[in-house]
């Protein structure tokens, strides 16, 4: 998998063929535009450290977009529009010990469009860590399906919030969300301790697991390396 190192504030991807991109972003205030053309499938892996990113995306009819994003001390905003029969799977994992405010907007504009959004947050500090997720199903989007799943592991009692909003303007749709904010579960810690693993290592394993949840296998090794460096 080829890596693309982004060195400009505005980067545009147009997915004309079925393609996988691995993007490494070191630019603050990056605006990333992703357009998936009709009947095309794109996979975008995004590695972004210590910066703010805005993702604007349009998925045309029958297009499929998968985004796996790992951010360290990052805030991500997004505005994603789905056309007819379009599909989105967005896994947005962020490990942060500074403020991280993430505004995610997913618009269902076409019939039978499907979106799945997974927010995996680990708040290591005592700062703001917000996921504000607006899922919108328009009147024209009969048969659409919208799903939002958000978790924040709040290690040091930081100011963590999940605000899921679902604005649904059609009766014939499916919409669901789940949200969890809390510490690492004692049950998981005791279980791993009972296999001789020390507490510090257990926390590292469970933080890593939480951030890699739902990610494609192709990207797990590379993201694992980044997480290992950060939690060391």
């Amino acid at each position, binding site marked *: 998998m080829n890596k693309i190192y982004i060195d400009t504030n505005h980067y545009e991807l147009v997915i004309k063929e079925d393609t996988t991109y691995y993007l490494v972003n070191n630019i603050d205030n990056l605006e990333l535009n992703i357009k998936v053309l009709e009947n095309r499938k794109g996979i975008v892996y995004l590695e972004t450290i210590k910066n703010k990113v805005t993702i604007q995306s349009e998925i045309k009819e029958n297009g499929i977009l998968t985004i796996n994003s790992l951010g360290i001390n990052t805030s991500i905003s997004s505005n994603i529009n789905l056309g007819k029969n379009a599909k989105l799977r967005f896994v947005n994992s962020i490990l942060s010990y500074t403020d991280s405010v993430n505004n995610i907007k997913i618009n269902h504009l076409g019939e039978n469009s499907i979106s799945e959004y997974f927010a995996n947050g680990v708040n290591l500090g005592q700062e703001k860590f917000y996921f504000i997720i607006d899922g919108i199903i328009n009147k024209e989007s009969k048969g659409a399906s919208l799903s939002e799943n958000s978790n924040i592991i709040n290690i040091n009692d930081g100011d963590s919030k999940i605000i899921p909003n679902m604005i649904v303007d059609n009766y014939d749709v499916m919409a669901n969300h789940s949200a969890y904010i809390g510490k690492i579960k004692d049950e998981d810690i005791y279980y791993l301790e009972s296999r001789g693993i020390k*507490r510090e290592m257990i926390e590292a394993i*469970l933080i890593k697991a939480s951030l890699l949840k739902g990610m494609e296998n192709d990207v797990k090794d590379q993201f694992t390396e980044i997480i290992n460096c950060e939690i060391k």
Partner: protein
Amino acid sequence: MDIELKDLTVKVNDKIILNNFNLQINKGEIHAIMGPNGAGKSTLSKVIMGYPDYNIINGDILVNKESILKLKIDERSRLGIFLVYQNPISIEGVTMREVIKASVDANFENKKSLYEFVKELESSASKLEMDKKNLHRDFNLGFSGGERKKNEILWALMLKPKFIILDELDSGLDVDSLKIVTDAINQYLKENPDTSILIITHYTRILDYINPKFVHMVKDGSVIKSGDFSLAKLIEKNGYNQSFDIKEDTNCE
């Protein structure tokens, strides 16, 4: 490993769960604990392991004649105690292989190379007739009850414990899988004859595969009757309630 539970009384949320519990397991012995639901069997396993929610108000747990009460859960594991859970957890985002590797690294001073580790892991997985692909799947995620139990035994084989607690091992295992799993345990015992085993079970089925030298019947948090394998058969025949009252000799020590 020698294990002695001495006059153990344990409280959870102001309720006595184990009451003056006594049990002596010598090196290389296999013991079974049987009892109805709520008798305190699974509590016992977590108390031995050192779970902090259980308040030991009296008594002691001795391993090779030394108290382990002050040891934390991970320290007890590194001493050689291994609990096979009735309902093991699952963890999404991390593979079986990674978790077991972390555990093996923590338990042995001489770290194995990744190659040696993988070779040993795959060899142990073969003994359990496991699909090797499972080692690269998220830990226990989407696994059946039987597969999870196999994963537990695989982990035990990798850590080479000296005292194994099998908490309801047979629940979730079909007949074929139970045979595979118990064959692997019996083989392990043959290769490591000093290893002691405590089987916690409702049913005698597992005892036909791993034969205990002693069987103990538990009620209301205490051992109320001990005997040999024939006690298990008596329980199977008469049920718990009637077996509590039967005075016949079951070759108790």
